[in-house]
């Protein structure tokens, strides 16, 4: 949403241990639709970074293409960002990480960007255990290209145009666990009390941390369930065939207790049942994590919380035995073997 942000800051504004206010962690004004779940996630990232007293310039923000992938512009304005090409953020993040292992890499992607075009790169960045936080802002559709089903859309759900999705939905959380991610969580954009701590834990995690964040698309939401009621405006839009009218809507929030269920009514009137993993869930057990996820799915519930963590996870640099100095800081003296060595090399080819 575009609005004019005031530049005024009260002197008593809270500051973190680095002396920065939370506003210091913000980015440019968002141009997303009013009420878009993605904006809530940006706000949560701002809060998490503020609370963790992260140096913004020690963060690199990376993304692909989509509404979700635009969001890195909207947080951490003092960090370098890279809005790459559709579905290929993981490879760019991998290269960046190889160049400098000392930064915090925050990758933001969408369900289209990750589960469709990016599925291959996603699988492999997980498998490599790259030290990064990978966020999917999951709205079950392609927001930026106007609402087509994504591969995470529920089987049987209806898209904006009314077509029923006949295909299996991809559960990125399970896939991430299956492929060896060492921190896997799911949350909801409107549940800041759950989301902020998860983001903080994920940022602190060494290795690959994945958070699948359900983030309703105000404009093209397409969860199953019937429409709330006969809607004059909807009918009007259908009749004209133009999808250029987007009613202003509010952000959906949902804060609830661990171990409980919570029904969230989405913008189209459909209901999504969130379930927060109970305090008893043991997130150290990979097989168990997969089981509870599947069970919830069969119940028609969306399980949230920290699903799996391996606290002994290693950074890929440790596995690769790369030097501790970031590679981008090595100069000629270290990198270039010099002419003497070259003479020996020449000799070996005679």
């Amino acid at each position: 949403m575009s609005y004019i942000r005031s530049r005024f800051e009260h002197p008593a504004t809270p500051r973190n241990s680095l002396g920065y206010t939370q506003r210091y962690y913000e980015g440019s004004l968002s141009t997303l639709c009013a009420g878009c779940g993605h904006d809530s996630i940006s706000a949560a990232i701002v809060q998490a970074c503020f609370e963790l007293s992260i140096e913004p310039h020690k963060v690199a923000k990376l993304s692909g293409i989509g509404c979700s992938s635009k969001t890195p512009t909207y947080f951490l304005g003092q960090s370098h960002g890279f809005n790459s090409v559709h579905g290929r953020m993981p490879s760019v993040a991998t290269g960046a990480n190889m160049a400098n292992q000392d930064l915090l890499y925050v990758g933001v992607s969408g369900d289209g960007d990750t589960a469709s075009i990016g599925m291959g790169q996603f699988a492999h960045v997980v498998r490599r255990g790259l030290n990064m936080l990978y966020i999917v802002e999951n709205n079950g559709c392609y927001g930026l290209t106007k609402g087509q089903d994504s591969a995470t859309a529920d089987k049987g759900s209806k898209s904006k145009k009314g077509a029923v999705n006949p295909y299996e939905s991809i559960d990125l959380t399970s896939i991430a666990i299956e492929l060896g991610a060492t921190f896997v969580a799911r949350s909801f954009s409107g549940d800041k009390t759950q989301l902020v701590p998860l983001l903080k834990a994920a940022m602190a995690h060494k290795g690959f941390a994945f958070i699948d964040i359900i983030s309703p698309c105000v404009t093209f939401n397409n969860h199953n369930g019937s429409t709330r009621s006969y809607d004059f405006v909807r009918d009007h839009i259908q009749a004209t065939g133009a999808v250029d009218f987007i009613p202003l809507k509010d952000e959906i929030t949902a804060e609830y207790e661990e171990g409980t269920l919570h029904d969230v009514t989405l913008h189209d009137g459909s209901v999504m049942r969130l379930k927060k993993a109970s305090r008893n869930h043991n997130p150290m057990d990979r097989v168990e994590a997969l089981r509870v996820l599947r069970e919830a799915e069969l119940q028609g519930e969306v399980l949230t919380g920290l699903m799996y963590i391996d606290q002994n996870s290693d950074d890929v640099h440790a596995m690769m035995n790369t030097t501790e100095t970031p590679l981008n800081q090595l100069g000629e003296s270290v990198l270039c073997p010099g002419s003497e060595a070259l003479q020996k090399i020449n000799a070996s080819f005679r």
Partner: protein
Amino acid sequence: MNPIAAVNDFVIKFANVNGTGSSSANGLFVKAVFRMGVPVSARNIFPSNIQGLPTWYQVRINEQGYLGRRGGAVDFMVSLNPQSMQKDIAEVQSGGYFLYDSTKPLDPSLQRDDIHFIAIPLMEICIREYTDARQRQLFKNVIYIGALCALLDMEFQVFVDLIQEQFRSKEKLISSNIHALELGYKYAQEHFQCPLGLKIHRRDKVGDAIMLDGNTATALGAIYGGATVAAWYPITPSTSVVDAFDKYANRLRVDPASGKKNFAIIQAEDELAAIGMVIGANWNGARSFTATSGPGVSLMSEFLGLAYFAEIPAVLIDVQRAGPSTGMPTRTQQSDILCAAYASHGDTKHVLLFPSTPKECFEMTADAFDLAEQLQTPVIVMSDLDLGMNDHMSEPFDWDDERKYKRGKVLNAEQLEAISDFGRYTDVDGDGICYRTIPGTHPQKGAFFTRGTSRDTKAIYTEDGEKYVENMDRLIKKFETAKHYVHKPELSHNNDARIGMLYFGTSSHAVNEAIAALKEQGEKMDAMRIRAFPFNRDIDDFIAAHDKVFVVEQNRDAQLRSLLMIENHVPCTKLLSVLNYDGMPITATQIVNEIQRQLGRVEPPLASVTPIHQHKQES
């Protein structure tokens, strides 16, 4: 029958079966020729297969230093493959020699009266000497090399030295190999009149040259050029670039104190990921490269457009093979020129370098990292299978220890501190190249957002047409600036002639030889070797100074000629094409014949296409 006689000027070809260990033995032979001071080149002609199919190794020995492939019949065939024997016999020059394993008698129908058959019962000897099946297989190769030493009048000690160096202190391996060599040597001496008419005699014609494949040289160039991140996906014939980088990096780039690596190699899941990683690493300030071949370049094309437009350095080694599609994956071609120069949709142009020797592979690869960072754009090194995978004689590498890496316009923390308003895409110096910053440099200054979408000079997203045009025009200006930076062409033959020749890469050998041959035929020629794209005035001037200019290249569609026409003000009628695209390196004979043919013609000589220019179908 008149046996061919020649000293240090003939072609010998080995016909083997894939996977039988012949290539190391054949390599030993070539190295020995080289050690004897005689110029030699070798080309592996191998199938896209791992085991059991015919493979050939063609060696040209030429005292004058003409080391391009010599087409046509061979002087000496070493036949170890019954599958291809018929074809191999047919390929021998009248008066030539045919060495074969006579354990099984030669099929009488294969006999030829005009060539010399040299029968050695290789397998029989092996069965007698060795019990292990695999040793029998392996040493069979060494035995025929021993025989060649005697037959061609070579110095046995040279072979002994090579074996000792190769196996270092592994005594058992040394003695057994030398024994096998001797078996062959003695058998030849005892059964044939040694030497034959063909001889290899010591000379002093190789100077301080070295001999290696271009891919190894490329890898060393990457090491010396300061590459720290290699990301790749295996594909013939580029795989050995990263293999060699791995090998030398593990030798030369491991911190002695900690044992930790000052480099990272990632085998990516595919080529899209490989180039993505290279872009990510370069964006983050590390010198990074990938190596691939045609199909990989196609897959990288979206990302190359991003790097062009967002102005991110990247080094890509394209070891070209015969296309299109999977084509002939183990054959050579120069057919990715257009595809690389204009890779990606929209208006894009990429910097290309064209090495023609291992030394240039080394230098240009090292330079590519400087160029990529100076120009903030992808630089593509256009090698090919012939150069990359075959051993070539080359000038030795050298390196100036004073040389500093040219990192281009990168602002450090102090510089940022001093600047009041940093604009990532502001053309401060008027050369089209702007200043960039690396993440993590400064706590408050220099952060910006990199994107493949249009943006203003401060890197802020914009859909403003004027700003877009300004940026696109600046990119053209930058490409003009690139002409200052890239390798200038080499005027390789200056004979004050009316006819010129333009060529690049691995056509060099054949061109040099062709020019000499044409001279003998009374046709004077000048020649210029193109070493980089974008082209610059030297090339314009060269074309202007000649009545006709032949463009020699190894593809069907005259791709370099196309590039010349598009980018320079060259009248198409002046540029004639000499093309070879059968997957084998071009030969001097092909060039000579084609030029003579075109010079003798009356009609306007152009490509191979005769336009039809009619309409059958009204629509």
